[in-house]
């Protein structure tokens, strides 16, 4: 009765394997209200805790010009003024982290259901419960590894594909790397 949805487990590993830029665009076609604010910050990209991190990392609020002055309404679709190729691709891919978090949330629900079943099953088969817990933990571990590996490779694709990557794109990619870095370090 309680365990019905365990049968509908998402095969997350497969899903992650198959993520590419188009999927991200599809799932999150317009992450920002006003389009892709390329000129200014990708506001959703900045983690709140950023300014207090390690001295080695640039403080965005200092180095970037006019941050405080930029409102959501200031962000317009600036694709035309920016002639760089592949710009939209880059900015849409900043949602990799968000996408994976989204999948994470759903999957972690299912993982929790799995855990609850294991805990509930203890009194019937203590040893099996422990064994299953071990398997679950291994699964979670490999899932996390896979997610981060995928995210890493998606990031790499953003600048490593041999086509001309503008400085602007590189700037943005570096921001993505920073986000990723922060998530890992945290």
């Amino acid at each position, binding site marked *: *009765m*309680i365990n019905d949805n365990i049968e509908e487990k998402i095969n997350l590993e497969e899903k992650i394997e198959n993520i590419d830029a188009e999927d991200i665009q599809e799932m999150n076609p317009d992450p920002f209200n006003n389009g892709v604010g390329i000129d200014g910050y990708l506001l959703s990209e900045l983690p709140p805790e950023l300014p207090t991190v390690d001295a080695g990392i640039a403080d965005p609020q200092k180095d970037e010009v006019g941050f405080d002055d930029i409102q959501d309404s200031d962000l317009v679709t600036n694709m035309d003024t920016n002639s760089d190729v592949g710009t939209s691709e880059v900015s849409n891919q900043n949602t990799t982290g968000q996408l994976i978090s989204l999948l994470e949330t759903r999957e972690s629900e299912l993982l929790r259901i799995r855990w*609850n079943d294991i*805990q*509930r099953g*203890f*009194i*019937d088969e*203590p040893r099996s419960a422990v064994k299953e817990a071990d398997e679950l933990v291994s699964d979670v571990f490999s899932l996390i590894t896979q997610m981060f590996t995928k995210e890493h490779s998606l990031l790499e694709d953003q600048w490593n594909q041999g086509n001309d990557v503008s400085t602007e794109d590189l700037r943005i990619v570096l921001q993505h790397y920073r986000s990723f870095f922060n998530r890992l370090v945290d």
Partner: protein
Amino acid sequence: MNTIYTIIIVIVVMVILGGLLALVFSRRNHSKKLQKQFGAEYDLAVENMGGDKKAREELESRKKHVETLNIRQLTASEHDRYTLEWAAIQSKFVDEPGEAIKEADRLVMEVMQVRNYPLSDFDQRAADISVKYPALVSNYRAARAVANKNQEHTASTEELRSAMINYRSLYNELLVTKEV
């Protein structure tokens, strides 16, 4: 004349004998019926009450008592609720086995009361339950024995685990809701 007297005497004796036999057989029948219904509980009663006759009387009075109680089944929503409550304590066992046992004992008692078994001490509860659930009352007693041990902190986790399973066996039966 003598023949007629003899015949009459023989008939009377046979009637008396017949009556006595009938009495003996009906008692044995009654015993067998009770034994069949109560199983091990019958033997326990014989031991506790000191004899067949007293055991039979005890068990008969239990049956009569429970008949007067108007025991009802759980409603569908009560059934669901108590199913969830048990699942919760079954999970809780991993963190607090001792607490889980106490709550198991309490849940069984609660469901009994919801079903109209009267509030009473354990021995009375066991006696009441033995009428409709004779096969499970020994589990109930065994579980309770471990719960008592737990009060003195002398029960091992494995004993507590078995006790949970024993409580559950009765609990699940108490929850059974049949289409009438």
